[in-house]
């Protein structure tokens, strides 16, 4: 299996210039780099791994490691869908499903872009649109707790399904996975518990990593 293609904020190599489309956070301007989103397509999966993880991110990483994932997959603790406009992603975070500029992650997180190369442009747009249909859905914090409990038994065990908690709620990796499945009718990952985790999205061979680089602001 090929190695992961990761965009690291500590890497100061740039391949061109990015002109912001409007105001950007001063800290980002000071950081001086922005991902080359020209290489990204709508519906692409974005995986994030914080250089200094928060308590919750650490808990997800630890849970994924304890549950049986390799450290290089377990380190991805957050996922989002790229919407195709150069800056915006759709994500499920503690405040629910919302659209945000990717700005907030570029200085502080390792970034990985993954894609199903077999999909047509129309299907890619549909994945982005399907993610948007979940806007405003609640974040399924209770599912995170259930996943933490399952991690102790190991995610590889079958018959370890989650109770029907928060069908209207969603976690970040499910938002990405379900948007893909609604369009393609295929599973990205056959997780034993039925719940897809960021580490599953890191592992799935149905997606390939996209080459991407930094641009100078």
């Amino acid at each position, binding site marked *: 299996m090929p190695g992961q293609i990761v965009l690291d904020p500590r890497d100061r190599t740039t391949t061109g210039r990015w002109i912001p489309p409007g105001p950007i956070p001063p800290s980002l301007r000071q950081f001086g780099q922005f991902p080359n989103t020209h290489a990204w397509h709508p519906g692409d999966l974005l995986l994030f791994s914080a250089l200094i993880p928060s308590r919750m991110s650490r808990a997800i990483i630890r849970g994924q490691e304890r549950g049986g994932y390799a450290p290089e997959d377990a380190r991805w603790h957050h996922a989002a869908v790229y919407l195709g406009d150069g800056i915006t992603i759709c994500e499920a975070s503690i405040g629910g499903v919302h659209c945000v500029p990717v700005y907030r992650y570029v200085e502080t997180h390792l970034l990985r872009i993954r894609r199903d190369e077999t999909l047509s442009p129309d299907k890619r747009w549909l994945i982005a649109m*399907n993610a948007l*249909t*979940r806007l405003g*859905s609640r974040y399924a914090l209770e599912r995170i707790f259930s996943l933490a409990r399952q991690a102790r038994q190991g995610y590889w065990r*079958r018959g370890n*399904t*989650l*109770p*029907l908690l928060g*069908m*209207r709620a*969603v976690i970040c990796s*499910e938002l990405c996975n*379900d948007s893909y*499945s*609604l369009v393609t*009718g*295929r*599973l990205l990952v*056959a997780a034993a*518990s*039925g*719940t897809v985790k960021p580490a599953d999205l890191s592992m799935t061979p149905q997606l390939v990593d996209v080459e991407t680089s930094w641009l100078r602001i």
Partner: protein
Amino acid sequence: MPDIEQHEGKILRINNAGLGIIEDERSQQQFVFTFDKIQNYRGEEARQLGLTVGTYVRFSATADCQVTTVEILPKNPHAVRISRE
């Protein structure tokens, strides 16, 4: 026309976007379906259909795992068979 196979399994996960995941009872293979594949579906929510995690379904799928129809079973069909024996 692709080959279509009949399966039985139970719901592993559903969401309110109209998506469900089924685990085949025999092979333990997972299949994804959208609610429009449910027989006589008219836009109901999962709750109105009585569809929850663990609900038994009979479904047909193509060789490349595309689910074509889903029928919600009233209860565990295996439990019925056992009780009749």
